């Protein structure tokens, strides 16, 4: 009984099987297209991290979203008097980049603290941020910033004292 059923299954399926192969082919094409699209979009949305030293050295791209990070230089925060635009300096203790941001700074933003900013470079020294992140812990240092400070301290063992 079982064998008979099986035979019937196979003979019945032959024309359908062609259809099935065609459909599987179509599905594979679809998956491949989707994968290609996904990876392309993925590549466009990657945000690389640059230290102020790398930005000054001209290694950071001008036309795409990037992240920069470091310590906010003491007494560098300047507010415009009429709206909510601020500028402040971010340093890895070797080089410094000025960040301009219009909006409300996070609660834990303070001078002397590590921050990360998302945005685009304008020229070589000014960074227009559309997002500024400071983490919800005073003792916390974003790993990228910690690494940047360490690298900077290693390259010129100057008077660097990370936080």
């Amino acid at each position, binding site marked *: 009984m079982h064998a008979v059923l099986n035979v019937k299954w196979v003979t019945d399926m032959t024309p359908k099987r062609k259809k099935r192969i065609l459909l599987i082919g179509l599905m594979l094409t679809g998956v491949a297209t989707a994968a290609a699209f*996904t990876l392309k*979009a993925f590549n466009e949305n990657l945000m690389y991290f640059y230290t102020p030293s790398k930005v000054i050295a001209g290694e950071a791209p001008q036309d795409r979203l990037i992240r920069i990070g470091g310590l906010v230089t003491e007494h560098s925060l300047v507010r415009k008097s009429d709206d*909510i635009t601020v500028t402040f300096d971010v340093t890895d203790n070797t080089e410094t980049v000025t960040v301009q941001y219009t909006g409300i700074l996070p*609660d*834990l933003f303070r001078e002397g603290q590590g921050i990360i900013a998302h945005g685009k470079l304008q020229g070589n020294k000014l960074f227009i941020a559309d997002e500024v992140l400071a983490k*919800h812990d005073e003792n916390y240092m974003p790993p990228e910033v910690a690494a940047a400070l360490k690298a900077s301290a290693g390259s010129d063992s100057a008077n660097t004292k990370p936080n």
Partner: protein
Amino acid sequence: MIPELGHFALILALCMSLVLAIVPMIGSLNNTPGWVDLARPAAHGQFIFLVIAFGCLVNAFLSNDFSVLYVARNGNSQLPDIYKISAVWGAHEGSLLLWALILGAWTVAVSLFSRNLPAEMLARVLSVMGMVSIGFLSFLIFTSNPFERIFPVPLEGGDLNPLLQDFGLAIHPPMLYMGYVGMSVAFSFAIASLIGGKLDAAWARWSRPWTLIAWVFLTIGITLGSWWAYYELGWGGWWFWDPVENASFMPWVVATALIHSLAVSEKRGAFKRWTVLLALLAFSLSLLGTFLVRSGVLTSVHSFAADPARGLFILVFLAIVIGSSLTLYAWRAPEVSSGGKFSFFCRETLLLVNNLLLVVVAAFILLGTLAPLVFDAMGWGKISVGFPWFSKMFTIFTPFLVIVMGIGPLARWKRQDPAELAKKLRLALIVSISGGLLVALPLFYEGSAWSGFAVMLSLWLVSTLFISLRQRYQYRGGISGMLRDLGSRGSGSYYGMVIAHFGVAFFIIGITLVTQMDVEQDVRMSPGQTIELGKYNFRFEGTRTIQGPNYRAERGTVRVFDHANKEVAVLSPEKRTYLVQSKPMTEAGIDPGFLRDVYVSLGEPLGGGDWSLRLYYKPFIRWVWLGGILIGLGCLLAATDKRYRVAKSRKVAATQGLSDQSVSEGQPS
């Protein structure tokens, strides 16, 4: 003294879990009933010791015992009692203890409510759960002992992170953990069945209610987290594609695929290998979530401590669990019969498509979450994957998912005539397309193509659900028939599905409309100044200082008027400074509504009484969480379906049905 007792109880719990993992498993393999019977007492013993350990830690917090390092760091005598208790899971060590406790609770629950399981099977399931428990308990004891003492004893504790001093967040972690850990039940059932080589409809029926309940917790946990982020972080956001959110969302997505695939395995005996694989994946992703959150490899609000030893431990644990379960799968799965045959177009196929789409969604979230780690490890630079990518990917795949979701419940099992189905769907198609167009055109509403699209998808779901309800109405013979039918087998599953899918319809409208039509502005305001935003005028009336129980705050007053100059709401956003940790915290002022929220948060003082303020108009934001709640409720209803209880009380019938199934599938039993 009491903390030492807790530590001791923890070690005894580990001993119990060792017994549970080893003895019943061996007993089940060489048929030693005495050893098999040890599973239940061992599970109970483990749980009792975990309760004692947890109780000791709670006691240490309530009695302000700052000689315990963990309490000294995270507790404070000024904390309200409820937050003293929630502080227990406010950081790494305690949250792991909670995890272990919940695992112990699930283990006991399985041992109590699975009396219909064959003794060996139950022994194996509990045993696998014991193995997972060994991993977590040794992690606790060897790397993260919550009972460690410090000397000299500080006079006051370091306080709980102010962000966590909130009711929503007090219950968010336990909910999420109930979900994560609950996935271990489906996992253990799958592993136990693979060991026994017996994967059949009965196995699916046993795992299904457990998986459904775990999924309910996960759903509610994620929804709570999103709601909390919205009102507590002060940015008005409700989902950030933050690595830690992704860590909870991935297991959710895979578990969603799992509960649908389990339905097919139970009803049709098909997809069994696939279902097992999903069960393994869902729990593996839960573990990965723990690894991502707890090891501190990812930077996030949620990561507590970066400690390489802990990270390494979890990584090795993860490798062992995933590696061994996949090896077992590769070894045993080929022996599993492929199960019920079905033709090319039918409900099974539609559920398969839904499963594939969900797995694809989980895969791209995994890609985006792990890419920064991979790039860093390979030295390709430090990257982060932007929010827009996740949103884009999600928007590409979800519509297909929703379309299939609409058709699925109307299609027949096994074989479906496409023409008949098309006839059923015609009305839904007309309703959804015309509704979508109406919203997309600027005739009645603001008009946006995306909003129209979302409304179309929602209407598609809603109208197909109504068609399905009407069909049931006809089959059951009117309303009275449907009412009589309410308590019967299968009706919980059905109405649960209907409610959950309605929830999805709400959710789609919520996320799309709030994304498309919200209005946000960061502004500088002087006292007395009025600013227009969206449909409302916001008048800032300055701030004053107030004193809270353990914080001081600047409280602003913002009056909101509509265009007829009628007062809509008075909002009191606060900028708090917690005294112990001296952290500033933003407490938003929100006027919630079914159709829209008005949301104001204070930025910084700019001198002369001026403040920077963040003003929001958020339409349909509540629908996002309403959807989440409906999805959870629907699933809960499905989990309480009578047939699981019937199966329990009629053990013999269940096993008989099981053997029938195996015979009809040509499987040697």
